């Protein structure tokens, strides 16, 4: 339960558990599908999804940047879908997997909306992160 403390507010804990479990399950499902296809690119893609699944449940300090993991996983999934639309083979398992990936994006968007403040919240957090990064770089530069 530690892993979802970053998103759980009173009254939303079970929603958070359900959403997080669904996101991890969908991520592992598409990782397994890509792993089953073999070859370097599919294996790298599968490992990427597996790493995101781990990042979605890592507890402690990782919880503070969960929003970043969500945004990155949405980007990774959309890039994978885009790659398939442009170059991918059309066969039943591929269509099933694209369904899984679309569902993953939808669930991540719901999490993002409920717990990260939606697009405006993400923009605020990104600005704050960029400021902190710039300040760190400036401090190191001054030494």
């Amino acid at each position: 339960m530690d892993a979802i403390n970053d998103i759980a507010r009173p009254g939303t804990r079970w929603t958070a558990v359900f959403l997080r479990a669904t996101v991890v399950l969908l991520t592992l499902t598409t990782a397994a599908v890509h792993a089953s296809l073999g070859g370097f690119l599919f294996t790298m893609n599968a490992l990427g999804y597996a790493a995101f699944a781990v990042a979605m449940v890592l507890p402690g300090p990782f919880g503070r940047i969960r929003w970043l993991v969500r945004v990155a996983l949405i980007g990774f999934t959309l890039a994978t879908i885009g790659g398939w639309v442009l170059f991918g083979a059309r066969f039943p398992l591929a269509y099933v997997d694209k369904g899984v990936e679309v569902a993953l994006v939808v669930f991540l968007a719901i999490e993002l909306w409920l717990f990260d403040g939606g697009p405006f919240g993400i923009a605020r957090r990104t600005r704050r992160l960029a400021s902190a990064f710039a300040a760190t770089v400036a401090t190191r530069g001054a030494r």
Partner: protein
Amino acid sequence: MTRLGARSLGWSAALALVIAACSAPAAWTGPPPTAPPGGVLIVAQALAFDRTRLAVPAGVPFEFLVASYDAAPHNVTILDDGGRPVFVGETFGGPGSRTYSVPPIAAGRYRFRCDVHTYMTGTVDASPSVAQ
């Protein structure tokens, strides 16, 4: 090792097992594949075709047997000079085989590939002199 580190390691190990199980090669159980009469045979193994050149008859239909020793799905698509498909074979999971009935194609040089693994590729020479 911290509790956080141990837990992360456990998750990673479980995920690695899932990935490994999904990508483990499966064994071929059928008899050794042989080319259909008047047709062609190609074998997919370890994500590669066993040959990169095929000779097929031009102007008449022929059978194209694809035998796969891989667990990964494969198919064969035949493309013309401009990259337009002249025949698209059904994708199937392995290990297993499919016999495609290819409609007549004009004499000339074509390319073939697996649509799932587009680096599995070769050339097809269609000629009227290829025996039926």
